[in-house]
């Protein structure tokens, strides 16, 4: 498999079929691990990095995870290929932009990925559609146990798994969900959500685009505390308490909007669809913003004949690197805007 093989379809975990996927698009659990007897990546020279890379690559590729697994040499990939992997959340931007021997191992259906020599020697992650954090944790725990049979992780009885950044120490676990919260945003309550997250030691960031910008009402919420609780406790609190609370607020906000301002809501949804069906040039930001409204319209049954899978697909496939990979070469922003508009038009006008 080459990165370019991915540019024409969506990842399975992004297809909107999972439990509660109208609001919780997907779940992810990641573990950070380092090998004992090696410096952490920031102090690891190139030849030792190569050693770590080869060792972990061989071990992980030999595991039987019920999926074909592919290795990608991130160091020798083109910028476009790297960007594509970042857009699909298979590797981090940091991993794409780092230097030196490093790689990624990706399962055929993209439900599992491993980053080798990112900030830590090994970061493994499992993705699932909808709210399925427990299932993600069970799966990644199995994989971690399999790897651990063959390597010695840097571990300290008091601090647990040792990580390059001391804020990940302990379990090294990062539990996160992708959320679609258009009604909270529309009703001006997103600030509350940010503050509540901060108060409970959770991190929020926008899902698409870079930095803290949350274009299109999509957010990624994840835990920050990795020490002092078991993995199971962290997963249970997150998936049994925190996420359901937020989902509840979003549902309330949607109901309130439907009741108080149905015309305003329908107007936003229909205008969004109108623009998406007729625009000839559309930036990725505008597309995200409008697709978000259409997505809510479908979820609230204000629109018919459009599937969530189609909308999710458009989110993923109209990102810059996806468009360029599909075309087979780099495109300037104007060409991308035209191509994006054309893909959206053709997909949404079929319906």
């Amino acid at each position, binding site marked *: 498999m080459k990165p370019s093989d991915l540019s024409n379809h969506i990842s399975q975990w992004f297809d909107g079929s999972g439990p509660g996927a109208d609001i919780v698009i997907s779940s992810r659990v990641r573990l950070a691990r*380092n090998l*004992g*007897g*090696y*410096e*952490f*990546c*920031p*102090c690891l020279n190139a030849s030792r990095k190569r050693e770590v890379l080869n060792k972990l690559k061989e071990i992980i590729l030999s595991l039987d995870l019920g999926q074909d697994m592919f290795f990608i040499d991130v160091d020798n990939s083109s910028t476009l290929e790297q960007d594509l992997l970042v857009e699909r959340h298979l590797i981090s931007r940091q991993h794409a932009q780092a230097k030196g021997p490093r790689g990624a191992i990706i399962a055929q259906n993209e439900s599992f990925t491993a980053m080798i020599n990112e*900030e830590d020697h090994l970061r493994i992650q499992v993705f699932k559609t909808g709210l399925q954090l427990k299932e993600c944790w069970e799966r990644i*725990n199995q994989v*971690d*146990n399999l790897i*651990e*049979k063959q390597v*010695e*992780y*840097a*571990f*300290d*009885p*008091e*601090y*647990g*798994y*040792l990580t*390059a*950044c*001391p*804020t990940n*120490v*302990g*379990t090294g*676990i990062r539990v996160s969900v992708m959320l679609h919260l258009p009604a909270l945003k529309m009703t*001006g309550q*997103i*600030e509350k959500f940010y503050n509540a997250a*901060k108060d409970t*030691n959770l*991190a*929020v960031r926008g899902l698409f*685009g870079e*930095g*803290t*910008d949350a*274009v299109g009402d999509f957010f990624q919420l994840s835990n*920050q*505390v*990795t*020490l*002092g*609780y*078991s*993995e199971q406790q962290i997963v249970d609190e997150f998936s049994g308490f925190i996420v359901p609370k937020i989902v509840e607020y979003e549902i309330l906000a949607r109901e309130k909007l439907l009741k108080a301002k149905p015309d305003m809501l329908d107007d936003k949804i229909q205008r969004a669809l109108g623009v998406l069906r007729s625009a000839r040039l559309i930036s990725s*930001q505008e597309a995200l913003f409008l697709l978000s409204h259409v997505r809510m319209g479908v979820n609230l049954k204000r629109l018919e004949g459009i599937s969530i899978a189609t909308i999710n697909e458009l989110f993923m496939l109209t990102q810059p690197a996806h468009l360029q990979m599909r075309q087979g070469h780099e495109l300037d922003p104007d060409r991308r805007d035209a191509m994006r508009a054309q893909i959206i038009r053709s997909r949404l006008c079929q319906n």
Partner: protein
Amino acid sequence: MLCQACKERTATIHLTEISGGQRSEMHICEQCAQEQGIVVKNQIPLNELLSSLLSVQAEGQTSGAGPTGMESADDLVCPTCGMSLKKFSKTRLLGCPHDYEVFDEPLRSLIERSQSGHSRHCGKTPSRAPKAMKNHMEVMNLRRQLEEAVKAEDYETAAKIRDQIQQKQ
């Protein structure tokens, strides 16, 4: 959403201000926020923690007989990987597992503060009993010496060190 100030870039900073019972919202980009002197705090103010940590360290040192505080803070260097406390405070990343011992005290307070008071792991443990950290550290030190010996073309020493490493692994 476009930045209200420059109307060019995307607003990435969203502020709610309440003054005189009036609530107002502001949406601006990072550049404009900087120009207007608005400071936005990180979710985890790691920078702040780190700089306060360094200054605590410095105060502790100046009360003693040592030279100036900051220089003393620099003196805390891991012999295994060469990471210093000062470098760590810039990069936020440690150099090797041994650093958790070398920077024990300052790290402990940093970890407690970023882990809402916790300082003890209670999650899963590797089923394979890890070899003593000490052994790992010794191998790392030997490897460093080996590289130096090879660089100095002292192949006799290099061979000895290589044998020592093999014994330990």
